[in-house]
């Protein structure tokens, strides 16, 4: 039987502004700054942006709304929400969704550590003209004590914030950090736009290559970027929705989060591509865009600060501060997701957070000392996020799509019509196409000769082995999780969800 519901009243966000700010902080991460500009520029510029807007409308917004209903109605983290919406046999799905994000948290802390390290480099004037940024990056990543130290700093800072809970911790921090992040991005974008020659960067980013719109790969890449960027299917928005006020809006908030996330991406794109094209040749810019996430931010872009008026002492610290804030605000959401689930399982926050910090630190160490290991984890759990979106849609189907729609509509500031139900029903089709493309890529592009080798970082087998292992563990633990998670407003006395009870 589920544990007694705690008698203490759960904290809630003080206003819609702080909820939306926190949710935008969850969505805006390092990917907005270093992945989006590359993807947009290399895949048709404006044509990619059109596909991205469509992806936000048909995938991200409906799934964020579903997550919001799951969290706000059940008042539980991912495990309890799936149990209460789908019945006790399905708690494992919430465990799977949550643990995929926990898997990301383990290495994302290392990435945040890099951003913090580079912020420290920047404020100590390391990005002077002529700095060999490739050597700086190689030196840093080849020094385990440094990468581990900054991983510890990142997870430690976030642990302190989450330890203090909503009202004294992440709400108050994010209320100021997210507006500050936008101010930094606006300053960096304006700086880039005022550099002579930056218009070529804007052309790269914004002018549509219409021919690309008929290219299926552009759409698949745009949907992937959207899924990785908005956080739809990660369980993070679900977790923040646990702390929503009663009768809070669903539809307008989800739309605002997606628009805010897109705006942050565009500002970062202008800042990065505008600067690169202004200060270097087209060939350099395209090489930078093709150099991967870390290469773009820490090697190619970092090289330019010394050549920009005010770059070394002003714009370099601003850029890496923005990168660190974007990363940390997402890491806060990941740790809160973990903490919420552990709290639901009966461990108080003051005990849960130190344990989570310790485990995240230890499990993150392999990613801190091996870029290959980190890349593997990024690949496995990044693609795994797509499954989380499907699980949220399945939860809505089991609960009753029309019933969910009516509940969303009752509290939303604009009409949640049958468009939402339709998008949830066709979600599995969109998922199969997108997920199938990723699986196909593992066999045809990423590891064509080693797709069966689980130790090959980008092989099909490494994906399957790690996902199946997680799913099996969650299935084995299902009954224990169902019983152990505390009772919530939707839980029946038998511990089953309301749907099961009604069956």
């Amino acid at each position, binding site marked *: 039987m589920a544990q007694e519901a705690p008698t203490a009243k759960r904290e809630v966000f003080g206003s819609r502004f702080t909820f939306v700010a926190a949710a935008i902080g969850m969505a805006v991460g390092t990917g907005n700054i270093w992945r989006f500009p590359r993807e947009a520029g290399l895949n048709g510029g404006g044509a990619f942006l059109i596909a991205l807007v469509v992806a936000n409308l048909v995938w991200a917004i409906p799934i964020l709304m579903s997550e919001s209903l799951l969290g706000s109605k059940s008042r539980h983290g991912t495990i309890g929400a799936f149990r209460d919406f789908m019945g006790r046999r399905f708690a494992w799905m919430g465990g799977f969704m949550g643990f995929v994000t926990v898997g990301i948290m383990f290495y994302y802390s290392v990435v945040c550590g890099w951003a913090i390290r580079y912020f420290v480099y920047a404020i100590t004037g390391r990005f002077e003209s002529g700095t060999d940024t490739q050597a700086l990056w190689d030196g840093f990543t080849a020094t385990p004590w440094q990468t581990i130290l900054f991983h510890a700093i990142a997870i430690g800072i976030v642990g302190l914030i989450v330890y203090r809970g909503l009202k004294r911790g992440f709400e108050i921090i994010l209320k100021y950090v997210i507006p500050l992040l936008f101010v930094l991005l606006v300053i960096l974008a304006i700086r880039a736009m005022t550099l002579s020659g930056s218009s070529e960067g804007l052309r790269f980013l*914004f*002018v549509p290559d219409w021919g690309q719109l008929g290219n299926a790969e552009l759409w698949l890449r745009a949907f992937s970027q959207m899924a990785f960027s908005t956080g739809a299917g990660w369980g993070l928005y679900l977790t923040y929705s646990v702390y929503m006020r*009663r*009768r809070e809006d669903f539809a307008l908030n989800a739309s605002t989060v997606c628009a805010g996330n*897109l*705006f942050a991406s*565009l500002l970062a794109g202008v800042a990065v591509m505008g600067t690169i094209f202004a200060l270097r040749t087209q060939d350099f810019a395209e090489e930078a865009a093709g150099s991967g996430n870390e290469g773009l931010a820490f090697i190619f872009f970092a090289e330019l600060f010394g050549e920009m008026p005010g770059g070394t002492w002003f714009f370099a610290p601003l850029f890496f501060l923005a990168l660190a804030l974007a990363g940390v605000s997402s890491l806060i959401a990941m740790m809160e997701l973990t903490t919420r689930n552990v709290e639901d399982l009966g461990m108080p926050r003051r005990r849960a957070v130190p344990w989570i910090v310790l485990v995240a630190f230890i499990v993150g160490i392999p990613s801190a000392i091996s870029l290959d290991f980190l890349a593997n984890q990024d690949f496995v759990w990044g693609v795994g996020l797509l499954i989380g979106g499907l699980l949220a849609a399945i939860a809505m189907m089991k609960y009753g799509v029309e019933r969910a729609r009516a509940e969303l509509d009752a509290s939303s500031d604009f009409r949640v019509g049958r468009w939402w139900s339709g998008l949830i029903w066709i979600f599995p089709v969109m998922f199969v196409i997108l997920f199938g493309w990723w699986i196909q890529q593992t066999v045809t592009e990423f590891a064509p000769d080693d797709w069966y080798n689980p130790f090959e970082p980008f092989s099909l087998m490494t994906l399957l082995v790690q996902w199946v292992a997680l799913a099996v563990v969650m299935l084995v633990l299902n009954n224990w999780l169902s019983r152990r998670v505390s009772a919530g407003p939707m839980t029946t006395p038998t511990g089953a969800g309301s749907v099961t009870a009604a069956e």
Partner: protein
Amino acid sequence: MEVVVWTLIFLGGTALVLAFLVYWAWKKDREKGEQYYRSDS
């Protein structure tokens, strides 16, 4: 010219949409009042 137009469409358009959504939320919250979020019905 082409660059300016498309930059305005995408960057300016997204900023406008975001500003509109934020304004809409602010207006709705003012209409409903704080009490709305404290009561059950």
